[in-house]
């Protein structure tokens, strides 16, 4: 077993079943501090469910989930886990449609989460600057005062990534960030995620192999709720079991 003190995320023998169906089956996975990791796998492999478990949406039936080497996540709720420093982008881009792009980012600012703090909140200059920085990073300066609901699909994906950046989490979980994006947007997103991974640990779930290749990082193949293979993309792609799983469908 791996030493778990230097991991940002440590999953050991995690299982969860829905009505008898094992969505996650004895899954073990370790992510190092500061690592960028890609998770691939066919539809229904359990990728989203794995994120649900890490972020407190789903309780595992068995197994250990540790954050930063020592904090057990399985007893905490979503808000507590988010405030520990784990941010999550949903598979279906989810932003606050009736708020402006700016307000979406402002609501994601780290800290000030209690109702009382919110009621009397005043935006500080450095916080405004931080929002402007992130607007630039996600390339939405021009949409600053636009309602988020009027953004294109790709822009919503970026806004959601921007919201994660505002939270400034130690670990980002990014579920299918380039689904529905144009090629140009995909390239831009890969650049963005690589940039983010310079000072955050990031887990990216994706189907798009070209995109995963451009991330140039360690890859896990998930299949039927457990890890089928791990290594560089070239290595796992030449793994006969992996080829079987992908072509067998």
């Amino acid at each position: 077993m791996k030493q778990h003190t230097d991991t940002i995320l440590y999953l050991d023998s995690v299982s969860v079943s829905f009505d008898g169906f094992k969505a996650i089956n004895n899954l073990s996975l370790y992510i190092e501090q500061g690592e960028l990791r890609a998770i691939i796998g066919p539809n229904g492999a359990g990728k989203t469910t794995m994120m649900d478990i890490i972020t407190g949406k789903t309780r595992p039936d068995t197994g250990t989930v540790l954050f930063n080497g020592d904090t057990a996540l399985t007893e905490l709720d979503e808000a507590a886990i988010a405030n520990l420093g784990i941010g999550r982008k949903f598979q279906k881009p989810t932003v606050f449609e009736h708020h402006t792009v700016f307000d979406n980012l402002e609501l994601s600012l780290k800290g000030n989460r209690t109702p009382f703090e919110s009621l009397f909140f005043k935006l500080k200059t450095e916080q405004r600057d931080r929002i402007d920085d992130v607007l630039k990073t996600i390339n939405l300066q021009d949409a600053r005062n636009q309602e988020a609901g009027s953004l294109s699909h790709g822009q919503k994906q970026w806004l959601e990534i921007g919201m994660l950046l505002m939270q400034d989490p130690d670990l980002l979980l990014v579920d299918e960030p380039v689904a529905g994006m144009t090629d140009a947007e995909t390239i831009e997103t890969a650049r963005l995620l690589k940039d983010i991974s310079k000072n955050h640990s990031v887990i990216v779930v994706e189907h798009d192999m070209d995109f995963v290749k451009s991330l140039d990082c360690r890859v896990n193949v998930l299949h039927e709720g457990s890890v089928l293979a791990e290594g560089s993309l070239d290595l796992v792609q030449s793994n006969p079991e992996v080829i079987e799983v992908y072509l067998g469908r």
Partner: protein
Amino acid sequence: MIRQPFILRILQDRLASFILGLLLLSAFLVPALNLYVSPESALHVPSYVVTLLGKYLTYALLALSVDLVWGYCGILSLGHGAFFALGGYAMGMHMMRQIGDRGVYGDPVLPDFMVFLDWKELPWYWYGFDNFGFALLMVLLVPGLLAFIFGWFAFRSRVTGVYLSIITQAMTYALLLAFFRNDMGFGGNNGLTDFKDILGFDLKSDGMRASLFFLSAMAVIFGYFVCKFIVESRLGRVIIAIRDAESRARFLGYRVEYYKLFVFVVSAVLAGIAGALYVPQVGIINPSEFAPANSIEIVIWVALGGRGTLIGPIIGALVVNYAKTYFTGALPEIWLYMLGGLFILTTLFLPKGITGTESIAQSFENYRLKLARWLRPHDFPDLNKEPAE
């Protein structure tokens, strides 16, 4: 579709200042026209009209309280009549105790219905209500506490949507049944009535009626600004975020249940204040105020006026209740069908209500400008020029 939220919002803000201005004006004007203009004059406002308008205003405050939770936080409460009724009962209990030995049975302490039931002692929960300050505190505390307890369980167990609406109906229905029982000690199905005075002022006097009207108008204005402060704060943006994408808010680290609890309690307290102003004006409070249909009617006012606008529900409550008074007099048998029909038409054709629909908000604005120009012709040289914000 290109959204133009800002234009609509500016129109709504203008409309709000206009309506609130009118309210403030009538808060002084209506009592003055009642008290100081002779009854022969065409400008005289009869006392029954003062009280009727005062009653509408308490409904407007009630509608406002529902808009805060429904329009901004997505909590469709079908039980707000309960908070209104509890505020009303708290005030009613004070006025019962004020009757003292002037009741039919002349008991110095026990209200008539208790003497009638052959009770010997005042139940403990009636203690303190002889004190006006205590009663006012209870007007705020009882609805607030019920909302807190109810919300604590409902929001923590993440009951949302239709299920939440159903349990709010169940809550008010349960209270209806409970208050019907004589041994609850709230006057059973007759409720509390035969009130005489508050702070020594006769409830039937013109001065008292005018004062209650004034207070009701002020309460609506106060309620509006409380809600406005909340929805324009960051907390307001959080509850809209919760309304639109609850799980996104959770994964950003917001404890959704605390936010819901906060607005639900504030809203219940406002509804309680409305009830407390309502009861002295209508002179009675009985369990029918808890009827589930009442709570549904409030939601209709809000939907019609335009939820999520604060000013819309105020207008909705005033318009629908005026229409109700008119039609239940003129054509009593069709009023309920009209109300139902109105609701269906609104949902189909004006899903955002009167004030949420841009064309209607724009025509309100045109009337407002016309009126303003008529009142102050020199301040409006150019029609199309907007004052700098």
